[in-house]
């Protein structure tokens, strides 16, 4: 009888981190489908290419660090990063853009910090911000919603054979910025009214966001994420928007528009929820997400960029340890929770 000696507990959930990550990937599928429906095959190509780049970069780096490649690839964390970045990139993105963004995200933002669990910043967002700063034009060229490109067109965009200029158009958030900054220029405003009015938010984007919302709800139902971050995020974005809109409906977009435009839902359910770089206690997460939401609204309304999920998330990643220190739960048998470091 050769007996295993181990410490309690002697049973654990069958679940593992890889399964966790796979659930996240599955949950992005509705969003990816709607993106494809609205803009053509660009996003699918992006995501697939990003996954390949991510796996190769991760494998190379693991090899360099002398780690067990298969074991670590199976945690699917690199794939999740790649999928999220692929979804965030415009469908017009050429291959090199994705290559740079994803490899930077994996190698610099994740592996150089020590790999999974050690990265203080959300790798996908680090990659995204790098690209946004380095290639602002390429990163803001979206297609007009509702007019999907054929697979061939998308592929040609991807390989760079097709110039993007003729096809690209403004997103609702872009348009709103333009309208907002030239509020007196009614002619211009009127000309752009169309894109601002989809069924209940910006044209086309309302469906994209709805799809991510669905995916997010699935994650909550599967207990992959808790409600704290999405709710905090959406409240942080929606409440100031509601308040401002009630005060000045001309200058400020309505809350529904804010919540269903750009990367709001993707950010709320998939990006801000990255556990590694988020705050860790429940209250901490609520505060963390709330601040992200508020920051997004502030940047969207007053800042220089049309959308701000990436910036806001990175900024709060930076504050997460601090938030953690001040939001420890009250332990059983203690009168109050501990504060501060020690």
């Amino acid at each position, binding site marked *: 009888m050769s007996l295993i000696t181990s410490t309690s507990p*002697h*049973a654990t959930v069958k679940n593992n981190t890889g399964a966790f990550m796979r659930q996240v990937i599955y949950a992005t599928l509705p969003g990816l489908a709607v993106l494809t429906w609205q803009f053509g095959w660009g996003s699918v190509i992006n995501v697939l290419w990003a996954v390949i780049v991510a796996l190769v970069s991760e494998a190379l780096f693991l090899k360099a660090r002398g780690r067990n490649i298969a074991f670590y690839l199976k945690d699917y964390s690199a794939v999740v990063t790649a999928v999220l970045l692929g979804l965030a990139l415009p469908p017009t993105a050429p291959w090199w853009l994705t290559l740079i963004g994803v490899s930077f995200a994996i190698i610099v933002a994740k592996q150089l910090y020590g790999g999974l*669990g050690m990265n203080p910043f959300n790798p996908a967002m680090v990659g995204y911000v790098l690209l946004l700063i380095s290639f602002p034009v390429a990163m803001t060229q979206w297609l007009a919603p509702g007019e999907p490109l054929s697979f061939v067109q998308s592929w040609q965009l991807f390989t760079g054979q097709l110039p993007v200029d003729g096809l690209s158009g403004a997103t609702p958030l872009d348009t709103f910025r333009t309208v907002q900054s030239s509020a007196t220029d009614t002619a211009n405003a009127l000309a752009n009214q169309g894109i601002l009015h989809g069924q209940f938010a910006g044209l086309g984007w309302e469906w994209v966001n709805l799809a991510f919302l669905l995916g997010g709800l699935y994650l909550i139902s599967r207990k992959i994420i*808790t409600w704290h971050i999405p709710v905090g995020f959406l409240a942080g974005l929606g409440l100031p928007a509601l308040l401002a809109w009630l005060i000045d409906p001309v200058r400020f977009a309505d809350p529904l528009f804010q919540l269903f435009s750009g990367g709001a839902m993707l950010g709320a359910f998939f990006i801000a929820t990255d556990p590694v770089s988020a705050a860790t206690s429940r209250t901490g997460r609520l505060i963390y997400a709330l601040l992200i939401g508020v920051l997004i609204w502030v940047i969207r309304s007053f800042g220089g960029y049309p959308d701000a999920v990436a910036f806001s998330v990175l900024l709060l990643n930076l504050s997460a340890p601090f938030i953690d220190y001040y939001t420890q*739960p009250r*332990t059983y*048998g*203690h009168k109050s929770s*501990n504060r501060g470091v020690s």
Partner: protein
Amino acid sequence: MSQAQTNKTRKTRSVFARLTSGIRRPAKIHDFHGGIHPPEMKHLSNGTPITAGPLPQQLILPLNMHIGAPAKPLVAPGDKVLKGQMIAEPIGAVSAAIHAPTSGTVSAIGPRPIQHPSGMDAVCIVIDTDGEDQWIEHQGTIDYTEKSPAELVDLIRHAGIAGMGGAGFPTSIKVNLGDHQRVEQLIINAVECEPYITADDRLMRERAEQIITGIHILQYLLNPRRTLIGIEDNKPEAISAIKRACKGCDIEVRVVPTKYPSGGEKQLIQLLTGKEVASGQLPAQVGVVCQNVGTAYAIKRAVCDGEPLISRVTTLTGDGVSQPGNYEVLLGTPVRDLLAHGNLAGLDIGRLVMGGPMMGFTLHNPGVPVVKTTNCIIAASPEELPEPPPEQPCIRCGSCAEVCPANLLPQQLYWHAKNDDLEKAQHHNLMDCIECGACAYVCPSHIPLVQYYRYAKAEVRQQAADQVKADKARQRFEARQARIEQEQAEKEARRQARLEANRKKKEAGPTAASTVDVAALKQASLDASKAYKAAVKAAKAAEAEGADNLAELKAEADRLKAVADKAKAAVRDAKDGAPVAAAPAEDTVAKLKKQVGDASSAYKAAVKVAKAAEAEGADNVAELKAEADQLKAAADALKAELREAKTNAPASAAPVTQADPVAELKKQVGDASSAYKAAVKTAKQADEDGADNAADLRAEADRLKAVADQLKADLRDAKANAPASPAPVAPTASTAAAAEQPDPVAALKKQVGDASLAYKAAVKAAKQADEDGAGNAADLHSEAGRLKAIADQLKVELRDAKAAAPPTPKAAPATTATTDSPAVPEEQAPQSLAEVDPEQAAKRQKRLKGLKTAYNMAHKQYKEAHAAYERAERNETASADELQAMQGKIDKLKAKADNARDALDALVEEAKADIRAHTGKDLKTLKLEAARAESALADKQQELEQQRSSASEDTLEALSSELQALESETQIARKALKQAVEEQGLAE
């Protein structure tokens, strides 16, 4: 349990409880944070009734099946034992007895592998069973209410009952709370929340009545306001059985939802009462006592049936056995035998777990025995309980925090524990983790979190224990040291006191002080004060640690101080006596010198220790420094005494030496300057080596130079005086002058010794510095200090000698007495005092005053002029002529001041000479005499005080007459001194 018993029990319940039991609203079940729902796996074993376990060939009974002190064996190998016979008795408060589970022979008492998670061995009593299972005579109690609670507690203790739920805390302690502690709720834990285990479930289904009787006994002992039984809702049969059994009595059955770990004591308390047990406290502190159902059953068996705890119901389960179920297993049954009894399924057993899958531990050896806390044995194939998957990185998903029943942040605890950051882990309340394993169960990265926490907790406890141990050891050591020193000092002081008394009695006067006594006394004094200091230190340390023997230590310190003071007084006394005595005073001086050396080296050592401690950042630096300061003070005091003794010595040892002061001074100067040179060399060397005591060394060199310069100046002066002083003496060649002359010479002789001592010390310091390179700054420092002290002293003495030399010839003719030896004409003194011309004295007094003022004025003017001159020179505000004029003025002023001082000095000396002429003693001698008389008096008084209780009447009488004599002597001395001083106008 019989119906009669139940009725009886019911009658004893308080009226209040019966009244309130009827009107209670439906109980609210609270909730606790977190928790998990692992697969229950109870169906494996809960379908069949409890059956008897095997009767193995050998039973192995560990002496510590419970928490607390191991029981003490009452049997020896070879002894025959009967079933139920106590084979080990409880030792100390927290302990439980052990009984033979069956009849047989004790075959060994020794280490065997036991049920410890670390797989360690422990002392066990091994019984070879005889198969007869023969009971010892035993008898139950029909009506336990006839026994007092204290009797029942004792019965429980001697029945060996310990918590059967898992921890094994001796039950006798938990049911014996004392009167002041009101038990609000008695909670019977029948939750059994761990997967697989069904022992309590089956017990409740089959023996509910007996359990209820056990609970009644607990109620009788604890008198709780309410009694609650908590059962998980996945045991419906057990619930209905218990409900049936306690129908009509004030026991409330509470069904709690199935969730792990609702069977945890704290969690169950929260579920049933909503109360939280404060961190670090016991449930009793919130008025709750928890007992396991199995324990209640064991209590019933012990009290009502007289059967001690010798068996228990254990679940044998897992897919490794083909007949899983519950067995009534004799304690000490090796798991191997139990497995065989349950028919090994022939499967490969991967893990053998004692306890549940969440909190149990794996057995490395199937020979480990079943003990009082063994509620379950899981023999699982690798498929059923697979090896844990490899650990992945923590992704901070927070699942663990979601399920933690203590509401901790397991991910943060893990992070800190892994990084060995115990402080932060404790800040995250590591110690409140109940090790339930819920966090590790849900962790998707399969991190063995609990293992990390156990490790970190053990580290924390270890550190705390180490700290306590170190503190205790230090305290003990210091106390012991202080005690030893005190004892020695006291012994020595007693001896000295005896000697002193004898001596005084014998000689009936202070004329023959023994120098040996002085040395010995000195030693005693040193010892005593050392003991005192040690005691003070110990007291301080104790105070810092809040030790509770503080008062004691302080009292001891005070006592020691008294001893030290006494010893010091004795020394002072002896010393004062010494110079006047005929015995060679130089001996005393030498002794004193040695003591000074000892004291200052003690001081040095202390300084060094303090420095080292400081460098290491030790926290007793302040203490050490204080000690060093104390030592320094002691050394200084000794030095002062030495100086005094030395100045006295010449007076008595006068006739011994005859030497040329100039030659001696020359030699001295040579010594000092070579000391200076050596010091300079050392300093330079140190500079080169970059030693950090270079500055110290240089300072020392400077000091030495100053000494040498001073000595040179003295030499010059002496040379100038030398021709003058012998001149007037030589022609008269009076015996008086000859007798007086040797005084300064002797003093100078002493100084030579000192100077060469200083020289040697400096050379030694230099050598030491050479060898050590650095780090002996402290030594050199204090050495330099000593040199300085000696130099100062030299100066003082030399000045005295110088001053005394010139007026002597003047005084000699003035005195008519030719037999002017210093220690002689005592009877003449009052006579000559009476002859003093008061008018003359008054005149001199006036002149003295005038001269003093004149000198002060002149000196001040000179200083001011000098400062003005320097200012002018520095600022270049005055022309060369003006400067010259100023210089001239300064010179004049200086001359004036010098004149005034000379006149003053002359006058003072004149006055002194007058005193000598009138009393036959100089002022110093008078002063000394007075002081000595006073301290002798004080000493006698003390002695008398001491002896009052112990000595015989005769001794006391003798002592008091001695005291009286001393008193009058003192008074005379005091008066003589006062008179002399006043008469001569030297009051200041």
